[in-house]
């Protein structure tokens, strides 16, 4: 075993030296950073996208196609992870879909888990804290176009709110609606994730932007003014819901799991 360790360390050093030789000349010389894109955005970003946060203007306006790809990466990774975890949970049902498996394994035996990881106090605090976290998440999600933040970050905050609910639910937090509650349960989460994903695909469809422009023109003809930024807000909200439900689903699966 020692010899294998030494060989591994040697290989690591060789790899590091080789990659240093390639990467260092790219990184180290002092090259002035290009300013053209920044100047262009400063002049036209707000007018074209309606977002005063220029990062959002790029992320959800100019390069929204990349953001769509990023959402898909997240979807694939989370769905893959959830189904891997879910399939391990009930192995006889191999090939079972993640959402269904999650419903079936709905917090099996939370009692012993709770004793190990969480105290009653933490559970109830988490339950009480959840609405505040959710509210904050909604704020980050909705105001991403003018202040730092956005759908993705808001979604992650919302996910942590949902996790708090999942923890707090055990001691009578707001999540407890019925004896077998379904609000923010795995099935509801995966349903929300699917519909938010459909909304994102719909919104970033190549014809949607022009359709949206047409809608705006029509609305202003009637006398209702729709601000240009509402497209970005809509995208932010659907990304936030998608990310929030996806991340929350994975974490809820992880919390519900018990090691052997």
């Amino acid at each position, binding site marked *: 075993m020692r010899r294998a360790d030494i*060989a*591994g360390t040697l*290989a*690591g050093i*060789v*790899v590091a030296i*080789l*990659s240093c*030789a*390639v*990467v260092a*000349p*790219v*990184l180290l*010389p002092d*090259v002035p*950073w*290009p*300013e*053209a*894109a920044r100047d*262009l955005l400063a002049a*036209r970003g707000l007018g*074209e996208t309606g977002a005063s946060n220029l990062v959002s203007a*790029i992320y959800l306006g*100019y*390069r*929204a*196609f*990349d953001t769509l*790809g*990023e959402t*898909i*990466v997240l*979807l*694939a*990774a989370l*769905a*893959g992870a959830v*189904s*891997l975890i879910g399939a391990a949970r009930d192995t006889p049902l*191999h*090939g*079972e*879909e*993640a*959402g269904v498996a999650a419903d079936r394994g709905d917090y099996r035996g939370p009692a012993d888990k709770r004793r190990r990881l969480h105290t009653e106090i933490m559970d109830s605090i988490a339950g009480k804290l959840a609405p505040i976290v959710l509210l904050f998440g909604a704020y980050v999600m909705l105001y991403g176009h003018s202040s730092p933040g956005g759908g993705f970050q808001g979604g992650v905050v919302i996910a942590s709110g949902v996790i708090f609910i999942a923890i707090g639910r055990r001691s009578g937090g707001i999540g407890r609606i019925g004896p077998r509650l379904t609000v923010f349960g795995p*099935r509801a989460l*995966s*349903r929300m*994730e*699917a*519909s938010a*994903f*459909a909304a994102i*695909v719909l919104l970033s*469809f*190549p*014809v949607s*932007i022009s359709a949206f422009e047409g809608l705006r023109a029509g609305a202003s003809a009637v006398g209702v003014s729709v601000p240009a930024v509402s497209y970005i807000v809509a995208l932010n909200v659907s990304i936030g819901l998608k990310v929030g439900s996806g991340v929350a689903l994975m974490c809820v699966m992880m919390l519900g799991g018990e090691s052997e």
Partner: protein
Amino acid sequence: MSDVALALAPVFLPLAGAAMALVAKTLRGSGPAAAMEAAGAAVGLVLPWAALAVLLPRAAGGGVAFVVSGWDPAIGIALRFDGLAWLVDALGFAGAGAAYLYSRGAGPRGPLFTAIFLIQTSALAATASTADLFNLFVCLEVLGLSSYVLVASSGKPGAFLAAFSYLAISSAAMVFFLVGLFGFYRLTGSLSYEGISAALAALPDGGGTAASLSSACVAAAVAIRVAVMPVYGWLPDAHALAPHAVSAVLSGVLIKTPLFALGRLLEFLPAGPASMELLGAAGAVTALAAVLVALSQKDAKRLLAYHSISQIGYVVAAWGMGTRVGLQAAYLHALFHALFKGLLFLSVGTAADAAGGRNVYEVRGAGASLRRAGDRRSITVVAYAVGALSICALPPFNGYASKGFVGSLFKGEWRYWVLFAAGACTIASFLKLSMIFLPAKEAPKDARTAEAAPAGAEPPRMSVTASMKASMILLAGLCLATAAFAGRIMDFTGTMLGVGAGAPSKSLYAAPELAKAGFGACLGVALFFVAVSKPGKRAATLVRARPRSFAGLVLAFAVGLAALGARLVLFP
């Protein structure tokens, strides 16, 4: 609908299908869910053909270059839907469609699998037409993530390890891609290929060392996905242990699309031709080396996986010439390989499942097992025969046309003989693989009596369903059709890629070429007997026992990267 919106249809239709499949996952009741999932698959895999049909005239006439949603090209994402993108899309949808059909019968099934599969198909289409460096990064990540999930979906523990190695090495490579992107953005302030190319040309020394090394980082990171020689190590496990349908797509389509996307980028870079040349040389070496390893394998699917590396070597060798004719030959072989290798993975996978084993030295009588499993007309065996004859490049089949075309580009070079030797070894290793269809030694009953006396026969391990047969028939039909119309297809790809006349479609069947093919076949048969002899088997065991580790894989990547960088910096 405008051309621009239509050009994005091959990307968005599979996505819409994926969204439908995800919605289907959450529906209650199996009837509506299954209907929704099937509709999603149809939207994602069938409807794009309509879009491609409508787009054909535009693609043939130079294509559409546009920025997504019409933003300013300085910041927006440039895409380019031209003849190459059309052809690569067609390849992708053909391979993915047939494989999905197979998966409906053999598994993995379920809306989640459908969704991830469609996402991967959509990413293939996006990769084929992107003309923006960061968008290429995102596309490759989507491709990667979805394929790790698909490899792991077989549920075998070995597949998890294969997926992990694949994930770790390609994620590490993608970090290098980002470093390359950083280098380019810092020098040029642009992310679109055209912007980068224009800004580099305006620099006094074309960007110098930094630009060359950035190109090396990007090219090496993509080369991992293509699995050329030093960096192929992740492929055999991943492709051998994935579900058969996934193997067919990974081998048929997924390793080629990044190559063509890389070619699109390298056209614009000063360091492009040199990188392509080095990769092309590596490709020729790959073609021979990988087939030698394939010859030594005992696991049927692993043997096929090494053949994929070998065949991609042909593609990379032709692509590396950097000319339009080279690109045409590369595409042609990539297309034919996607058809016959998809067919081989499906038929060999079916046969191995039916026979209950994958060891080439032990499994016998796979044909009889298949008949017991419900394949009474031996469709699988015929499909296998078509695939094997195609990959062996015997004259009337499509592999002969494409391999002959690739070979004709290198007349009089060392590569010509390397590729010729690789062809002979291919024949030998497929003779070896075909041994699984030999009748079982001690089985006294032929197929008919086995059917007549089911009581004595063991119960079939699986059943060959209609959709599995349909998918194999589809691919076999496509193989034969492309063989019959090889000349037409050559002309068509020539028009799409702007080569014009000059493809050697007529000279392929000249006497010297046929004689060479015959000589190669004899050599192959001789090699086969060497390989199954005692010393041959011992050598094969040695080859299989060579050390292969994850650390070695990363080391190979670093060495390859450094070699490419050194080549670009020292001999500009």
